[in-house]
């Protein structure tokens, strides 16, 4: 048995023990091939197809770096390197990429390649236990940098402390530690959607075609950063935008 098979066997034994409460979950895990699962004991990633493809993506060294000062102070050095690498690897991609990672160790927990305008997949929260979880996903060229109303599942996800969104010219950090119930999350998304629909509509009507994109990016970013009520049941949603143009 070579080292790779030994690690895989060890991983399956660990997962089996963690999944004793749910044999059904363990059977689903065995069939999973989309989602880069980390080996908690070794820090080495499981050989998932999407994660292997991510590892092979070319790094773009021509773009400005994401510096540790750009990220929350509780991100470790490895996590900061991961965020910088993720942006460099995905900035020229035609599809979105997404990861869940531990921001205090830099371990990748899940990795998905986007399909049909979205990215993500199935996860088991057993892999988040004892972890400090952030998500990161990319917006491809031709899309604004800011989070859309469809985002913000972080509000309901108690396990997810940060959501990082990378794009060609900017990076957004969405921070929400804790969780609110589903109804409050839906209310927030609905009202934000109404706001954004109106802003996009008004800007398109009143400006030259060549100016629309830059005005939408600036006006909606400023609205999200400075005017949106981000207090949810006494818990503050924090939004930060870093520009790299």
């Amino acid at each position, binding site marked *: 048995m070579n080292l790779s098979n030994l690690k895989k066997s060890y991983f399956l034994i660990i997962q089996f023990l963690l999944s004793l409460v749910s044999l059904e979950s363990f059977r689903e895990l065995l069939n999973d091939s989309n989602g880069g699962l980390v080996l908690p004991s070794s820090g080495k990633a499981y050989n998932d197809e999407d994660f292997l493809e991510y590892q092979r993506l070319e790094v773009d060294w021509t773009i400005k770096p994401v510096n540790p000062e750009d990220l929350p102070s509780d991100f470790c050095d490895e996590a900061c390197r991961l965020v910088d690498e993720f942006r460099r690897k995905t900035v020229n991609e035609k599809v979105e990429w997404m990861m869940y990672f531990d921001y205090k160790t830099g371990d990748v927990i899940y990795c998905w390649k986007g399909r049909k305008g979205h990215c993500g997949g199935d*996860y088991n929260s057993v892999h988040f236990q004892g972890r400090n979880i952030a998500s990161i996903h990319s917006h491809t060229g031709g899309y604004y940098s800011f989070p859309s109303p469809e985002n913000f599942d972080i509000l309901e996800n108690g396990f997810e402390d940060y959501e990082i969104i990378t794009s060609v010219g900017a990076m957004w950090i969405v921070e929400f530690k804790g969780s609110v119930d589903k109804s409050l999350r839906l209310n927030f998304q609905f009202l934000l959607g109404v706001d954004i629909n109106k802003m996009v509509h008004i*800007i398109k009507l009143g400006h030259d075609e060549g100016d629309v994109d830059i005005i939408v990016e600036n006006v909606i970013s400023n609205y999200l950063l400075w005017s949106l009520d981000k207090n949810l049941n006494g818990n503050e949603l924090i939004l930060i935008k870093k520009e790299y143009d």
Partner: protein
Amino acid sequence: MSEEVNQRNGWGHVQKCCGIPMYPAEYHFDMERPEGISDEDICDRRKHLNKFLEKYGL
């Protein structure tokens, strides 16, 4: 659409949205109004947004 569904034995599903497409692509956020949102809530929100947009002459 970001959503968490199928919470069963710890399993969930996540989808992060690729964002809002730039001009000239069309975008329209289409979501059914939640029960907790009243006409008054929407009216108050419009007033708040209009006040913000006035700063930009919009």
